């Protein structure tokens, strides 16, 4: 069974933030909520590295374990989704999540949290596929249309990969090995077009 995963190649991400914009636009995410964000460590230094991060759709999701109303479920594709009709906005999933994926729009006085919102892997929610209610609450259901999440589909450097975990991890490891080989044996000009990463490009 396919298990959907995101992989972000830190050697390719150029921090263009287009994945954030694409996600916001495609899913019409409410104000103040960003389902995806790009984090840059060592900004401005030689080893500057960026990663695009959202819900990682964990196999054993901490959010699902802690939720007091048990509103999370995992789809057949291994996507972790939640039911906004059940969510009470307690914020526990946000405390438990390592990636800061769950987001809360403010609802009412004193910073009272509204229904949690997070990346759905563009797979909608428990409502009927392509229904208005589904789009309203969870955004586009691209998976049901046979498409992958837009953030990854439109990533210009193909740093962000989304899809069946087995497939994309193979793709990624192949890419990493190839890149490393090119770096180690850079004088081998007979091997045709080469794969480079930022680390190689900015090495010297």
């Amino acid at each position: 069974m396919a298990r959907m995963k995101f992989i972000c190649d830190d050697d390719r991400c150029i921090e263009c933030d287009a994945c954030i914009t694409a996600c916001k636009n495609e899913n019409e995410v409410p104000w103040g909520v960003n389902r995806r964000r790009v984090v840059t460590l060592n900004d401005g230094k030689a080893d500057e590295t960026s990663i695009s991060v959202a819900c990682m759709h964990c196999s054993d999701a901490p959010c699902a374990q802690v939720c007091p109303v048990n509103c999370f479920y995992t789809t057949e594709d291994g996507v972790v989704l939640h039911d906004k009709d059940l969510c009470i906005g307690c914020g526990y999933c946000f405390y438990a999540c390592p990636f800061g994926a769950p987001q809360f729009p403010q609802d009412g006085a004193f910073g009272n949290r509204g229904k949690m919102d997070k990346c759905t892997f563009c797979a909608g929610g428990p409502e009927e596929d392509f229904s208005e209610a589904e789009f309203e609450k969870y955004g586009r259901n691209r998976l049901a249309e046979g498409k992958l999440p837009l953030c990854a589909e439109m990533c210009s450097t193909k740093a962000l990969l989304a899809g069946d975990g087995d497939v994309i991890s193979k793709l990624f490891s192949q890419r990493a090995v190839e890149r490393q080989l090119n770096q180690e044996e850079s004088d081998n000009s007979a091997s045709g077009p080469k794969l480079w990463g930022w680390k190689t490009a900015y090495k010297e």
Partner: protein
Amino acid sequence: MFRLFPFLLLLSTEALADERTFWRQAREGVEGYSAVVGVETNKLIQATGSQWLYIRNELIAGTGAWVLALTVFALACFYLIRGKVCLTEPRSGEMIERWNKKERWLHFYTATLFIILAITGLSLLFGRSLIIDWVGHEAFANYAEYAKIIHNYAGPLFSVGLVLMGLIWFEDNKFRKIDGLWFRQLGGFIGNKHPSAGRMNGGEKAWFWLLMTAGFLVTVTGLNLDFPNLEQYRLVMQISHIIHSVAALLLIVGALAHIYIGTIGTEGALEGMITGKVDKTWAKQHHDLWLETLEKQSSTTCGERKHTTESISQNKSETLLKKS
């Protein structure tokens, strides 16, 4: 060479060093830069979440359930073995005011809010494993949403009650030498002794100070959890939640014992809190020093009353200690 043996790349430490530094930084939650503005949006991973999850789900919910169950079990056993602590002498019919109107209102105001907070709070902690199967997913989620809101608003009101209690009962609850004797005689619950006590006995004082200390912690952490818009880091919220739950469970254990003693555990205790008056026999059995103080007071003139109250009970307690 690398093309033949790709695994040798693992030995090429220089290439991997950068990579390792980056992921170490990510795991440690080093703050970087993010175009997404917000609290901690510039952190890739917050590792304390999984520790909080373990403490909340395993230690607090797991152990808490046992602690509460054992408390109820212990109280039930105590009731079955010892039974009600009855008055040893017949009622005199003479009633003495023990709690004035303000004290009674304050007591039941705080008690009502406490019970509401305990039920709603425990629902969030144990509801998933106990109530969902029973009433269904949607019904519980609807209830839990209101429970959360009620809990959030009732909390500060409860804290007001705690502060007022602290103010009006502080004097009566200072620990004195006589309380040591009370605890050594196990408060008269075990055996047939009637340890001496002033207006508050050792047990009441212990409960008062548990309320004050755990109540303070619950209030401070609760207010913090009440306002997630103050841009606290998640670590602050996690620690607040843990302190809040542990202190609240301690209070619930204390409250169970308090409610037991105040209702079915002791003859005449509840009527004292409801009507404000207790029988003289009851006062003599449970709060002898207090009764003596009151009697001394009524025999002296109005002007002297205030000064005599404490000194008499103090002297009396000292002589009692010498005797024992």
